[in-house]
């Protein structure tokens, strides 16, 4: 039986670790390579790096960060942020990323998912979705809409329909990121996660809103998520990764407890 995964997400801007609250007011909170190694030693199951560097001429800094992490952290490493082509994906893979996250560029040009999955394999393509709750409508029947540009641009695209399309086009995994819950520490959006997780046959990673260990338990059980993504609750030292895993294990979830 597979263990549930705890995944830490590190937002990186200009080579520094940043934490966003509702995608604005980002602040630098440390060295991503150091943090990654600290979490790895403490039992983290997987790492996600998100490049939020604004200017494209500084993008190569990210490749250096990925390379430095990959040479000392021996768990799956997923990288996203600004992946627009198979070339971007390949560059990150050569630097040491296992999985590639695609997001906005795939919303604008869905073929990107097909192209990446045939180039690097389905299992290595993660479709990351930023989602906001809206009124149910003819256009958005699930009541959840895909947004891009850090949540500023609604796309008129239904989140459930997009998840199914992403799976069909060859995504190997989905990240369900609730923009409403992101940074609030009030808990994951359970309804959204559960709805999508039960509709697809690929693993689902819940993202946005984790503040307490109970939130992880909730989304991994009621939310039917395969993995829970954490950020600020570990970055600021509120909880240790090992502490979260011990709690979930104590609640009866199968977790990897030996590392």
């Amino acid at each position, binding site marked *: 039986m597979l263990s549930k995964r705890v995944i830490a997400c590190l937002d990186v801007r200009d080579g520094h670790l940043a934490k966003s609250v509702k995608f604005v007011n980002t602040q630098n909170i440390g060295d991503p390579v150091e943090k990654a190694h600290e979490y*790895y030693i403490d039992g983290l199951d997987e790492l996600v790096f998100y490049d939020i560097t604004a200017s494209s001429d500084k993008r190569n800094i990210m490749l250096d960060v990925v390379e430095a992490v990959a040479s000392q952290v*021996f*768990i799956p490493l997923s990288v996203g942020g600004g992946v627009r082509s198979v070339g971007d994906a390949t560059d990150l*893979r050569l630097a040491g990323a*296992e999985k590639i996250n695609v997001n906005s560029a795939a919303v604008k040009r869905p073929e990107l998912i097909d192209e990446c999955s045939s180039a690097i*394999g389905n299992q290595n393509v993660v479709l990351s979705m930023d989602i906001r709750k809206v009124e149910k409508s003819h256009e958005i029947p699930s009541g959840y809409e895909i947004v891009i540009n850090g949540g500023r641009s609604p796309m008129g695209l239904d989140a459930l329909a997009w998840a199914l399309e992403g799976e069909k086009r060859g995504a190997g995994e989905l990240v369900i990121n609730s923009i409403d819950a992101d940074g609030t520490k009030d808990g994951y959006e359970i309804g959204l996660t559960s709805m999508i997780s039960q509709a697809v046959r*690929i*693993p689902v990673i819940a993202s946005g809103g984790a503040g307490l260990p109970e939130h992880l338990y909730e989304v991994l059980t009621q939310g039917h998520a395969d993995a829970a993504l954490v950020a600020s609750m570990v970055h600021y030292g509120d909880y240790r990764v090992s502490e979260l895993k011990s709690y979930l294990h104590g609640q009866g979830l199968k977790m*990897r407890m030996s*590392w």
Partner: protein
Amino acid sequence: MPPSRNNIASIVTLIVDYDAGNLASVKRACQQVGLAAEFCADPDRLRHAERVIFPGVGAAGSAMVSVKERGLDEALREVISNGCPVLGICLGMQISLDHSEENDTSTLGLIEGNVTRFRMDRPDLKVPHMGWNEVTVRQHHPVLAGIVPGDEFYFVHGYYPTPKDQSAVLATTNYEGDFACAIGKASYVGTQFHPEKSGRVGLRLLSNFAKWDGQC
């Protein structure tokens, strides 16, 4: 004069390069356990190898085409018959059997048996089998030394090996029932999981392989 197999430091491990996925992470993990590793796509060089890692992700069909085109199939058979320690990982392990259901592919036949797809008939089990799962050692083997109950490794696969002879099964994992996650015969050992992505326990396995003389 080739370096003596007793002197690990002088041995270069060849990581077989046949365009099957990203091999850099395997090389990095080798370096971490003090194993000097180089990529190799040349059958003549592979024939004379002292230690070989045969990794790979992707589909069995295209992998076999690429292996044959480069003449690596014969070189692998030869190097194994010479008693050289060889570690297959994931797809590199799967194509060591006779046949794979994936693309209905005839594979290398180093170990008798087939590669089978997870049936996907249980809605609660997702395919590919992706994530951390427990490995239970069924047979003592120097490369698996130190793995204790509860140790988990990282898996990403939709197919799994079914060796004909149970004596080739070194370890199992439970997903859709128990399946062989480590197989071996003579100086060949193969894992379905990725030791290079499995943290401390994975590095330990690679370190065991680095010291293995190919004898069981």
